[in-house]
């Protein structure tokens, strides 16, 4: 009870004495939290969008001619040989025509002159959700292309490829900004605490002489680290949330974000980021104490 009272008083003194430096450090920490969590948020949203998209992913095999029911059965077996799939659906020429006509809606009269079999028959293959990754999808599509009678396989290759290379790039950016966060949090805090310690050698010396325990001297510096980590991450995440809020507000009408729903971090991730930055800042303060606090 009295211990904590003394510790908080001492921490308060430290804060009062070095607040300009502390503020700068806090801002740096929050900025790097902001940068890291910004990219991480985009990355997470891309992943979940990709997840959703890959759930809807279908490979369409266009066929040269309409397969007979017996042939359909054979093809079905062939496809299942490569990998288990969720669904295989045969679309006859007539079905394709009707679907297209439905899609045209009121403009369906443009089809009146067309023969009802001008669209090719096709097989729609929905892979299992476990089939992930660009290369696997590519392999599967290459396999489907070798099926006898197949003309062409489509699954939005371009889009999928771009998406995957983008998320890959993004994951590198996330790693880099995470690295930046680690550097700033530990090194900035370490140098701040170092300045505090060096600036107060005289007082720390005296505290030892009048019988202050190690905990009495150390805990305030650790608390400073914890406080920097906490406020830094809270400020960083709060500004990210403000940014997120503003963006979703202003861009939701434009159709850009309608492609996928953009969501903020779930509480677990928020908690983890806060804990992480607290741990990093405390570690920074601890290393400085080990180096410069002679007790």
């Amino acid at each position, binding site marked *: 009870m009295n211990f904590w009272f*003394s510790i908080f008083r001492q921490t308060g003194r430290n804060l009062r004495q070095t607040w300009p430096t502390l503020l700068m450090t806090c801002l740096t920490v929050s900025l790097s939290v902001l940068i890291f969590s910004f990219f991480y948020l985009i990355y997470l949203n891309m992943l979940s969008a990709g997840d959703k998209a890959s759930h809807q992913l279908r490979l369409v095999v266009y066929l040269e001619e309409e397969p007979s029911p017996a042939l359909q059965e054979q093809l079905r077996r062939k496809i299942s040989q490569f990998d288990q799939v969720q669904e295989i659906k045969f679309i006859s020429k007539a079905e394709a025509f009707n679907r297209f006509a439905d899609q045209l809606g009121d403009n369906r009269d443009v089809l009146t002159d067309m023969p009802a079999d001008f669209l090719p028959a096709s097989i729609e293959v929905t892979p299992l959700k476990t089939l992930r990754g660009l290369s696997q999808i590519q392999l599967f599509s290459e396999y489907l292309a070798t099926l006898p009678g197949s003309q062409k396989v489509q699954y939005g290759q371009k889009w999928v490829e771009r998406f995957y290379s983008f998320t890959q790039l993004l994951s590198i950016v996330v790693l880099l900004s995470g690295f930046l966060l680690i550097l700033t949090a530990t090194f900035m805090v370490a140098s701040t605490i170092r300045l505090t310690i060096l600036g107060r050698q005289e007082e720390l010396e005296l505290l*030892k002489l009048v*019988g202050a*325990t*190690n905990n009495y001297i150390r805990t305030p510096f650790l608390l400073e680290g914890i406080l920097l980590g906490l406020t830094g991450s809270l400020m960083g995440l709060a500004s990210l949330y403000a940014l997120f809020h503003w963006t979703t507000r202003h861009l939701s009408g434009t159709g850009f974000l309608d492609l996928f729903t953009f969501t903020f971090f779930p509480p677990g991730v928020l908690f983890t980021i806060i804990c992480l930055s607290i741990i990093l800042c405390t570690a920074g303060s601890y290393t400085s104490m080990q180096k410069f606090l002679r007790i």
Partner: protein
Amino acid sequence: MTEATASSRTAMIEMIKVTKRYPPNVTALDDISVSIASGEMFFLIGRSGAGKTTLLKLLCNMERPSNGLIEVAGMNIHQVTGNKLAKLRQKVGVAYQDFRLLTDRTVAENIAISMEVSYKQPQIIRNRVRSLLAQLQLEDKHDILTGDLSRGEQQRVALARAVANSPTLILVDEPTGNLDAISTAQVMELLIRSHNSGATIIIATHDESIYRHSTHRIMEIKNGRIASLSSGDGQGWPNVVGARDGAGATGGSGDRI
């Protein structure tokens, strides 16, 4: 040494054959043996450079002896570490010759430090600070930064900090160096008050006025050696050997060393 601790009073301080050399080859203390009883008031006198400050520094573990044994309250202070050392130091109040005040803190904060580290309650600390300042007639300096005080005022603040936490051992280095007669009297009164409440007090001084009429033991150091150790009166030290020559006797329980 043979029939040690036969005394009825326990020793607060035991120094046996203590030598302190500073690099490269300054011998500040040479073969000092002395025993100081719990509750005793003890004067340490000698010219400037005799080694008084060094002796006090050894006692509060600011310096390590080059040779010999030093025990404070039964503990070899140079082997005690960590929280045990902290606890021991909380029981030892030191008024340093160079004060060691935090010049960017107020008088009240400086005095409070020694009580804060032993987790005294804020109310108790406030009261104690006010009463000490009143005794030293420094009431109006409560919120002044110690850096703005005169030397004499700083000296008294340093003393107030030393006695604030009611330590069992008080080491005072030249407490009256910058003081006029009235302030000197106040300082001595404060020390005697602590002495009466049971604290062991060691005063290093070259100010003859404060020990001349004293009935307590006086040890004179010359060039790092004990030049004389007078026997105090009425101190419950029945067998004091009043040795006149330096390394002669310590007086502690009549031990010959």
